[in-house]
């Protein structure tokens, strides 16, 4: 029912999201970073003092908008459904290592598309790793992987993460001294669009993603599992519209929003192997979680506390990554980061095996 309408909807949503992402860069976000769920959660963690990397500290309104946009539309459509209880601590750990993978690559799957649309060919290695990670996850899905069922919860449980986003918005606007903000010229954290524009962008994209179930992982997963291309259409549409906007902005303004090549790309490094392995870890973990970081934010807005726990895992991963030198920089990956990614792949594989092949459960 409505398959063609659904494809048109996700095509239009993807095109709109790509344009919004490109516009956010025009309005002040770092280049190729109109949206990056990993980077923006990392910046927010820094603003709250959870890590001390002074160059990446800012409460990103896009994150607030994504959760609230999903929450508002889900409530309006009577789809808000507080639920949880499906292996929350396992999801926390998976979220933690998904972030480690993202910060090895320097971007979430959403930013991977935006990097490709900006001509950053390093993201091709990330894409290869990402697809391999998804295939690994799909293998376990078809062999019986499950984190078991969710349960209905009191409404307040589902509303807590959206409420926390409102608190973060108040902190961003009030800017009390205990919140850390990267100083002007001090790094990517200082580069941002005006609050109202970032918030509006987040709200629109959050609502569109809730309506269409847009998911960077789900698109490839559905093609492999069902030969169903619908979600992947959104993925491709974001790439196309962001690419076209970047080319137009480069031609029409003094800025450079598209540079084809490997070296000198904004907030990126050229180590192909570790770009690929970082995104392999991300893709693998996201399939086991049931969605990419963007999707986890959107599901949190719909009242899914398992996704909220995953988001908290992502934030914890970001804090660890910067406190212990695991995150890459433009100069490349760190030794600590490489060790963390290998550990992450092993841990995620163990979680996959344990929840696939071991069928006995604890007895009361």
């Amino acid at each position, binding site marked *: 029912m*409505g398959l063609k309408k659904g494809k048109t909807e996700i095509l239009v949503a993807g095109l709109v999201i790509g344009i919004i992402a490109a516009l956010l860069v025009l309005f002040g976000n770092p280049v190729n970073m109109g949206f990056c769920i990993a980077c923006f959660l990392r910046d927010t963690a820094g603003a709250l003092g959870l890590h001390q990397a002074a160059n990446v500290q800012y409460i990103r309104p896009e994150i607030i908008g994504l959760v609230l946009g999903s929450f508002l539309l889900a409530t309006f*459509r009577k789809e808000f459904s507080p639920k949880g209880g499906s292996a929350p601590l396992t999801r926390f750990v998976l979220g933690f290592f998904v972030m480690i993978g993202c910060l090895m690559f320097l971007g979430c799957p959403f930013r991977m598309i935006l990097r490709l649309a900006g001509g950053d060919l390093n993201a091709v290695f990330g894409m290869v790793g990402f697809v391999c990670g998804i295939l690994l996850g799909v293998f376990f899905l078809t062999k*019986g992987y*499950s984190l*078991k*069922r969710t349960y*209905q919860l009191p409404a307040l449980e589902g509303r807590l993460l959206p409420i926390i986003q409102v608190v973060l918005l108040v902190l961003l606007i009030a800017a009390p001294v205990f919140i850390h903000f990267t100083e002007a010229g001090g790094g990517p954290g200082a580069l941002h669009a005006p609050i109202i524009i970032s918030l509006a962008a987040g709200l629109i994209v959050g609502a569109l993603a809730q309506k269409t*179930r847009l998911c960077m992982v789900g698109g490839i997963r559905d093609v492999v599992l069902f030969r*169903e291309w619908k979600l992947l259409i959104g993925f491709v549409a974001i790439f196309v519209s962001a690419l076209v906007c970047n080319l137009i902005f480069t031609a029409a303004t003094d800025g450079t929003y598209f540079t084809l090549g490997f070296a000198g790309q904004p907030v990126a490094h050229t180590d192909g192997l570790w770009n690929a392995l970082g995104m392999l870890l991300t893709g693998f973990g996201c399939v086991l979680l049931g969605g990419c970081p963007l999707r986890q934010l959107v599901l949190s807005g*719909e009242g899914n506390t398992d996704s909220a726990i995953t988001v908290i895992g992502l934030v914890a991963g970001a804090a660890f990554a910067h406190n212990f030198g695991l995150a890459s920089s433009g100069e490349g990956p760190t030794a600590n980061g490489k060790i963390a990614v290998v550990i992450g792949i092993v841990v995620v594989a163990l979680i996959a095996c344990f929840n696939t092949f071991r069928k006995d459960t604890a007895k009361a």
Partner: protein
Amino acid sequence: MTYIATFYSHFGAMHFKKQCEARKMTARIMPVPRDLSSSCGTCVRYEGEEPCPSDTWSDEVEQAVEVTAQGYRTVYRAENS
């Protein structure tokens, strides 16, 4: 009659499809239709006289609906789901 069942895991859907096929019911695995749910999991669309292809509903089944001209009519929903 045409039914759609949704599940807590992809494997649950695969198992359910096998149950349907064992009873000679036409069944196929597909993504959950958006107008049925905002979740992006796996469902089984199947044809049969009875909505449940086994003696009892599996623990993996979240809900089952009958596809009607007016939309979906819920025939089963797991407790506390």
